[in-house]
């Protein structure tokens, strides 16, 4: 359902995966940002955001993703996205996000390419 949302976190030794579900708007974006910030403070510098279960996203949600990219950059970290729909990927490329973050088809390739 489009407006039920959720975040799953899987923290491994070297990296952590944040998997969203539902509409990525300001509310889900802020929650995601808080989780990412906590992981960064714990020392994680390699994060994956998996948007596979997020069918819809708005530009306010994306602006918060950019904040996460910027926060990681300050620690010389990297953010890799995976599970984007064709339209999401197109939008991310238009917004130059593809220059400062990785875009991969699935978690496996996102993890392999830090």
């Amino acid at each position: 359902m489009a407006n039920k949302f959720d975040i799953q976190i899987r923290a491994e030794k070297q990296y952590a995966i944040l998997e969203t579900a539902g509409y990525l708007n300001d509310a889900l974006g802020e929650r995601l940002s808080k989780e990412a910030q906590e992981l960064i403070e714990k020392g994680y510098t390699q994060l994956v955001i998996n948007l596979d279960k997020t069918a819809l996203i708005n530009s306010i949600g994306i602006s918060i993703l950019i904040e996460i990219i910027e926060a990681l950059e300050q620690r010389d970290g990297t953010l890799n996205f995976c599970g984007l729909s064709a339209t999401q990927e197109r939008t991310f490329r238009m917004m130059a996000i593809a220059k400062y973050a990785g875009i991969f088809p699935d978690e496996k390739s996102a993890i392999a390419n830090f």
Partner: protein
Amino acid sequence: MNRKKEAEKVSNTISNDLVLLTIPMRRDMELAAAQLASVIAESMSFYEQQVEEIQMATIEACINAFEHSKSPDQQVFTKFIMRSDELEIKITDQGVGFSHDNRAQQRNNKPDIHPEMRKRGWGLEIIHALMDSVNISSNNNGTTISMVKCKNETDQEDGQE
């Protein structure tokens, strides 16, 4: 035959090709417009990717009205016009309007580290990128953004799944 009822509702000049939606400027209501757009586009046999593009453009147009219009009635009016080869979506608010010159400055966002990856000010660009033709008419009585998606847009064909 039933003038009183008709007067209370939308005029009966509406045709078989029109869907009208009125939503309040309230959390998640842009999803109402987007999901409705999705059902309509699917019923017109748009490709899955086109449906997603229509949904995303609809969301951006609605949240612009929510965020920027300062409309006193706090409502957004959407008209979906189904044509054989295209879907037109007109999204209207009765707010303050805007022109290229008086667009709002970035609000209190964190500063952009990479100017090309700015955080805000993408909504209209996204709409232009995802739809085939976009027309904005705005004055101090409000804003209408009219967006058209064609079924056989040629530069899309290789992108289909």
